[in-house]
């Protein structure tokens, strides 16, 4: 049985794979395709016939990709940069989560002597196996029809999305900072490695470095992601 929506989704997936068409370009072509199909079914063609005729009239995926490549030179690069930035951001998030979970476990176990290292390693292995699994699925072509653009699609939802992400980062960071600083200072004081005065100076430098690395970098990445997606998005006016 011919499923029109499934065929259109497949067709979208093929266009998206060419990497030279932005999602706004594909939306525009899909709107054209649907209109043509509607016109043809009005002429008593079946869904399947209408789809193939409209598809033929619109042009093959390859020729469309070639034409768009001439005008969308930056799109391919932005596509790749987007996935790289997403990967780095994902890594940050996973590391933070791993830290928080391991610290929470060590605190709830009632002993600061508990070594959270093993949990971090286990969580990181889990994270990397997920990445390898996803890569394998992409390689097999199982995720071709995944439409990532559905996450933030309007200006308002983009803002909410980025604010929530940032708050999540800052909260996670604060938890790590607070507990780690406790462990760090109590360790230094009990071991009498350095006196309290030096410790204060060191702590400030350490906090500053962590601040730049742990909040500013993810924040910059989030902004980069939003900027990269903006070129692909469109807003429907009234």
């Amino acid at each position, binding site marked *: 049985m011919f499923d029109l929506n499934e065929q259109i989704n497949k067709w979208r997936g093929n266009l998206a794979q060419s990497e030279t068409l932005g999602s706004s370009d594909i939306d*525009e072509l899909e709107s054209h395709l*649907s209109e043509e199909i509607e016109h043809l079914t009005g002429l008593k063609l079946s869904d399947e016939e209408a789809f193939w005729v409209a598809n033929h009239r619109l042009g093959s995926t390859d*020729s469309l990709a070639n034409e*768009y490549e001439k*005008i969308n030179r930056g799109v391919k690069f932005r596509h790749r940069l987007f996935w790289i930035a997403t990967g780095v951001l994902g890594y940050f998030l996973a590391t933070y989560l791993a830290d928080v979970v391991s610290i929470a476990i060590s605190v709830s176990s009632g002993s600061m002597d508990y070594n959270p290292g093993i949990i971090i390693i286990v969580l990181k292995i889990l994270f990397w196996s997920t990445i390898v699994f996803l890569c394998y699925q992409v390689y097999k072509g199982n995720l071709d029809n995944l439409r990532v653009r559905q996450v933030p699609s309007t200006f308002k939802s983009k803002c909410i999305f980025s604010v929530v992400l940032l708050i999540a980062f800052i909260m996670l960071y604060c938890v790590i900072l607070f507990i780690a600083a406790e462990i760090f200072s109590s360790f230094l004081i009990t071991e009498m490695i350095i006196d309290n005065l030096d410790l204060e100076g060191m702590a400030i430098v350490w906090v500053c470095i962590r601040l730049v690395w742990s909040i500013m970098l993810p924040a910059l990445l989030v902004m980069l992601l939003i900027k990269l997606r903006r070129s692909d998005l469109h807003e429907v006016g009234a």
Partner: protein
Amino acid sequence: MVISKDLVAASATPLILSILSEGESYGYAIIKRVRELSNGQMQWTDGMLYPVLHRLEAQKLIKSKWRESETGRKRKYYKIKKEGTKVLKEQQNQWKIVYSTLRQLWENEPCLT
């Protein structure tokens, strides 16, 4: 008779600008209008229109906006800009010169009549 590809490509810009100078429109309607005006003799591969529209937009001759039609379908509407009207005037003059040159030659050619 089907018009050659080169001629179709060369006439795309003045055609699109002329249609948009009548009022805003969207891809599907532009192609339909060209087909009607030429009695189906000017055949575009539909998808090729959009890169041309995007190029004209990048050149700031036209602008676009996504809107929902009365039927609820999302469409990207294109509208001509001031600069586009100026370019259209220039192109009209150029095409008139080409047309009148060819006409003079063909009118004097006895074997064609």
